[in-house]
């Protein structure tokens, strides 16, 4: 989970950028580097466990059994599917070939279907998580994932439901690319404002979120230019044409199957890692993230990197919106625009995943499973009341965020433990004065 290369500090702990960034540069990224050396996987794991334990106490206080509830959530997320092994067959995606497989992939079974829904939710979460993570690496806190996601979805639904004469594959690719660029442009506004006049990105991205929210509501609402042509009384856009939909890879395409977008999301994880750790661009972005002044002194254009980092962030989030539109949603209603919070959950995903590629992937899966698992269809009313079930996921999410925010406490304990261990040995250990 930890990416030593990405911290800008040698694996041996040789003092490159300062042994204790806390003391010199308490910048966001500086703190991050400190975390990554200090805790590895410990902090996110501890925060998650503590959040689940606290959630369990709340469940208990409503006179329900937390273990049964968590078991129901686990099964509701479809994770029990992995335990049922046998002799089955699957069709290789995009072909007619059948091969032997040890799991039963028939989605008419609840476990398999639930798992497809978990992965369906995970897909955009990976991308909105990356959107937050990438900007974070440049020392920017991108709260605007939601707005960028919405812009992606709006552009996607516009292109998907128009241009009907285009051939299928180019139509789909055109939609995905344009939506990603739409999200990128949306984020670039905040980046450019930061670079040119120093407007804080937290403020501007939040404002851009609202513009996307109301702009989207207007566009697909009654009387809006993107409203549907079938029943004008319903505030929803036209459907994406059949040919432009992402192919289903698991399940019945009519029943919200898992679509090929998950491969794009996984590809984005790799792209994120490569850009950040294996390119000059990534090096500059990280350098600015650690210390903009030092980067400037080293000849790196800070302004340019602010804009670039935001643009790439927006690219991820815009793609998330497009994948949802072309993958399973196929249309955008006012309620969809206004209820969606995928972009905001992305913040939690990035923070819990500690802005590393692997971490974001795992955190997205955790939140995807949590949201699917706590749906009322999975939680039998005798296990947990449906009125509260929806809030349980939000509560656990909030607790995780709270603890991620308070991870200095956990780190402190971790450091104290390490210090104890170190002082037990020879005091000559390099750099732990």
């Amino acid at each position: 989970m930890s990416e030593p290369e990405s911290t800008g500090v040698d694996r041996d702990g040789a003092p490159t950028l300062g042994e204790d960034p806390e003391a010199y540069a308490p910048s966001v990224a500086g703190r991050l580097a400190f975390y990554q050396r200090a805790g590895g996987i410990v902090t996110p794991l501890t925060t998650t466990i503590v959040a689940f334990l606290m959630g369990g106490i709340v469940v208990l206080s409503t006179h329900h059994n937390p273990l049964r509830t968590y078991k129901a959530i686990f099964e509701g997320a479809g994770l029990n599917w992995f335990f049922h092994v046998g002799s089955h067959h699957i069709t290789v995606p995009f072909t007619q070939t059948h091969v032997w497989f040890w799991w039963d992939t028939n989605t008419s079974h609840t476990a398999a279907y639930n798992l497809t829904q978990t992965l369906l939710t995970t897909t955009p979460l990976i991308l909105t998580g990356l959107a937050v993570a990438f900007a974070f690496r440049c020392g920017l806190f991108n709260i605007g994932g939601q707005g960028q996601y919405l812009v992606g979805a709006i552009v996607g639904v516009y292109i998907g439901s128009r241009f009907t004469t285009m051939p299928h594959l180019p139509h789909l690719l055109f939609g995905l690319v344009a939506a990603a660029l739409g999200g990128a442009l949306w984020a670039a506004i905040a980046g450019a404002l930061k670079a040119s006049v120093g407007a804080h990105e937290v403020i501007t991205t939040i404002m851009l979120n609202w513009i996307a929210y109301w702009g989207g509501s207007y566009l697909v609402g009654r009387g809006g230019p993107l409203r549907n042509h079938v029943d004008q009384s319903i505030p929803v856009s036209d459907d994406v044409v059949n040919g432009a939909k992402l192919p289903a890879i698991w399940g019945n395409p009519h029943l919200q199957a898992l679509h090929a977008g998950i491969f794009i999301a996984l590809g984005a994880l790799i792209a994120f890692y490569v850009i950040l750790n294996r390119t000059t661009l990534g090096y500059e972005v990280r350098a600015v993230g650690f210390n903009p002044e030092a980067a400037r002194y080293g000849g790196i254009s800070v302004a340019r990197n602010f804009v670039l980092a935001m643009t790439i962030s927006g690219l991820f989030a815009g793609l998330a919106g497009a994948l949802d539109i072309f993958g399973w949603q196929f249309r955008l209603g006012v309620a969809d625009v206004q209820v969606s919070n995928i972009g905001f959950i992305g913040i939690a995903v990035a923070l819990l995943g500690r802005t590393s590629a692997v971490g974001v992937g795992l955190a997205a899966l955790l939140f995807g499973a949590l949201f699917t698992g706590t749906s009322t269809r999975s939680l039998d009313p005798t296990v947990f009341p449906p009125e509260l079930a929806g809030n349980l996921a939000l509560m656990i999410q909030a607790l995780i965020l709270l603890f991620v925010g308070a991870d200095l406490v956990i780190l402190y304990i971790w450091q104290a433990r390490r210090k104890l261990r170190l002082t037990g040995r020879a005091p000559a250990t390099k750099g732990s004065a």
Partner: protein
Amino acid sequence: MLSVVLAALALTMFAGASFGMVGAPTVRKAAQVTYKMAVITDVGGLNDHGFNQAANAGRLQVEKKLGFQTRVYDTRTSAERLPNLQAAAQAGYQLVFGTGFFMGDPLDKVAPKFPDVKFAGIDVNYNTDLPSKPANVRGIQFKEQEAGYLVGYMAGLVLKQQPGPDIASAIGANTVPAIVRYFGGYRAGVKKADPKATVILSYANDPTFSDQAKCKEVALNQISQKTQIIFAVAGGCGLGALDQAKAQGLWGIGVDSDQLYLGPEMLTSALKDVAKAVYLTSQEFKKSPANFKTGFNKVFNVKNGGIGYGKVSAKLKNRAAIIKKVNAIKKLIAAGKIVPPAK
């Protein structure tokens, strides 16, 4: 220290597990035949003071009075509509209600896969919202304009008899079809009783139907334009507006369910009885599941009791005379002599 806390937490949880926190499985009365019915809500939550809550209230009545075994599936995000619907059909519920017009597409996709299950879509228009015309779905529609007309007419009568400017207003949460229909009927009703009256119609743009501050703000705006009666067509959001009307000594009109309980400043309420629609539909199903008709729109209106107006404030002057006049209009609507406009 942390580990101590963790251990304590873990202990508490395991204690809960072993000491009978496990809810005893609900014992169902062994009736001859138990029918199973499920309600799938749309985004907004079970405590939305509106649509979802009303449908759930109907479900509870069905459970209590008709002896159905029921369950509610609360939809939280757009991605959950279809899976919830499918889960209910798969779990063996014979009658499945989907609430809200966004359920149209999921119903269109899921219903054909479960030909033995009967579906009903509240606020879903069978003719326009279900392209594949599944044979086992029934659309349930309401003539909200009739309820809007009735309370509008009463508001007009009140405007005429009391001093002050003849201005009435309405606040909608959002431009959803049902609210547009309420507005259409309301404006026509006010004008019918008081042709000189001005009617102000505004939207609070609250998709959650629960943000009281937004409706309150719109109410203040309307009050500055000298409105005398505020019709809040906005679920929980509308409570903020009604509160403001009450504070200024103006009349308020409730929506969907009878909201006279809010106080004597409530003139009356426009009733769109979703709970009753759920109940009546389930009752029809119970009579003969085999003959339960689907493949059309069931319209609830003044005539069949799904639409009406609520109790009238005791504070109202000439209360009996006004009620008499409104009832006369109600009869005309039921007879089809008056057709309130839908927008």
